[in-house]
């Protein structure tokens, strides 16, 4: 076998994720419940069931499915925030998740301090952040407010800066979850443009989005989830068909 440029970046192998819906949140509840013979443990809920797929380097894959079908859970498993209960996930290269931008922002710090804080949280070194700082600020378009505390930002400004930091991280694999719907239309267009650039530059991408337009434009392949099971994996147009059919 020869080394080709179609090596996988993400391998998802028979992954199962079970959430335990807990019935008690303190030891007292747990103990008293047990004495009274009530159900104290937790009810298992199968969020992902035996899901397998491989994403090759440079590929852009959309994950489609209804609300609650396990899309976000899948991305969180790939990013390492959650651990699977069975099966395994392997990844290669630097991973960046645009899952919830702005999670690491601190309202009492200035925009500048937050850029450094968040870049570090997303895995960047100090040098990398220094080099990209101007790009980040220019992209966000809020340079005049960069030294103000973030709590005085409007939510739009906040999202612009948060997104800008996230999109400028050094990455090989990008995970995007529904965030392309934030901000005003011009900024959204700028974001889509930036993501397309990354895609053209050969970055691997896994995208969750409700916007058919975005998905069609960014992705060549779609995986459809339904109640935690993979029901389709193939070309994006067919995937959208399957997803739409299941919507009805």
């Amino acid at each position, binding site marked *: 076998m020869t080394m080709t440029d179609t090596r996988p970046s993400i391998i998802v192998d028979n992954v199962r994720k079970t959430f335990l819906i807990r019935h008690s949140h303190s030891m007292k509840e747990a103990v008293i419940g047990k004495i009274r013979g009530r159900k104290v443990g937790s009810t298992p809920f199968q969020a992902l069931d035996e899901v397998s797929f491989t994403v090759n380097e440079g590929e852009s894959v959309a994950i489609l499915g209804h609300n609650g079908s396990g899309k976000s859970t899948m991305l969180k498993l790939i990013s390492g925030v959650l651990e699977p209960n069975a099966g*395994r996930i392997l990844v290669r290269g630097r991973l960046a998740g645009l899952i919830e931008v702005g999670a690491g922002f601190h309202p009492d710090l200035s925009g500048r301090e937050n850029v450094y804080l968040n870049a570090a949280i997303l895995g960047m070194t100090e040098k990398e952040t220094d080099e990209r700082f101007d790009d980040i600020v220019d992209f966000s378009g809020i340079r005049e407010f960069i030294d103000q505390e973030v709590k005085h930002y409007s939510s739009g400004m906040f999202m612009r800066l948060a997104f800008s930091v996230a999109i400028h991280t050094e990455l090989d694999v990008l995970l995007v979850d529904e965030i392309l719907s934030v901000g005003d239309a011009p900024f959204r267009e700028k974001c889509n443009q930036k993501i397309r650039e990354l895609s053209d530059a050969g970055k691997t991408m896994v995208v969750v989005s409700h916007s058919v337009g975005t998905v069609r434009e960014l992705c060549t392949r779609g995986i459809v989830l339904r109640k935690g099971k993979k029901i389709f994996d193939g070309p994006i147009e067919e995937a959208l068909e399957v997803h739409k059919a299941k919507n009805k």
Partner: protein
Amino acid sequence: MADGLTNPHLSDFRTPGRGNGILDIFTKRYLLKVLVKKDVSTRYRNSIFGWLWSYAKPLAQFLVYFLVIGIILQMDRGVDNFPVYLFSGLVVVNLFNEAFNNATRSIVGNKALVRKIYLPRELFPVSTVIVAFVHFLPQVVILILAALLYGWVPSLLGIVAALVGMLLITLFSTGLGLLFGALNVAYRDAQNFVEIIRTFSTWSAPVLYSWDMLAHRAPDWLFHIYMSNPLTASVELFHYAFWFDTSDGSLATPPLLLIYVAVAFVIAIASIFIGQFVFRRFERNFAQDL
């Protein structure tokens, strides 16, 4: 798909969400630094007196204890230079309480991050212990000034003793912080339990009284256990470093102190191993339990 799994070049793949545990504080030094900086610079935002609070709190606490224990209960007469004795023990307990408390709350306190982005979660308790240490330094400055007033002359051995004491407390509170920080995610009872430990901590070490009061009353085995408590060992190291030389020598440094310190280190390091082990077991559920 099957291609991917039979691909022989799996060596450069990794499992996401698996860090190196506590060792990541060395591989992620920059991130750790940034997290510490965030806490330090936001702690006293929007407060008029700011960092002065780091001086005011221990001073108020000192005054109360000095008045009640020193004057009313007359410890001032039993222990030479009691103010220095009291304060040098108090700062050690303060460091422990602050570090332990911060670390216990660190995972729940960083909920937003833990649920959404993966980073080695050990960084949270460790960074808060470092923050506690930063707030402890002003207290050491006051202690040094006070000791100088009482005729303290710095000695190399004294400085080593103080550093060893700080290291001991830092290790011990990190270990306990990992343990209770992880438990606190599943059961918020943990932080209430920690409150109780903190109430005991001041009394579990010879801060407000002297070790020889216990030596006369407790059976040997109990006394040895008492002395091997990392808190007691650190407090005695601080007494040795800042107070002993200024006193008339009537209250000696405990015999066997070196052995107690060695045992205390074993306990502190064991607490880190246990803390890390439990932390790892609970970590896989942090994001979904929070």
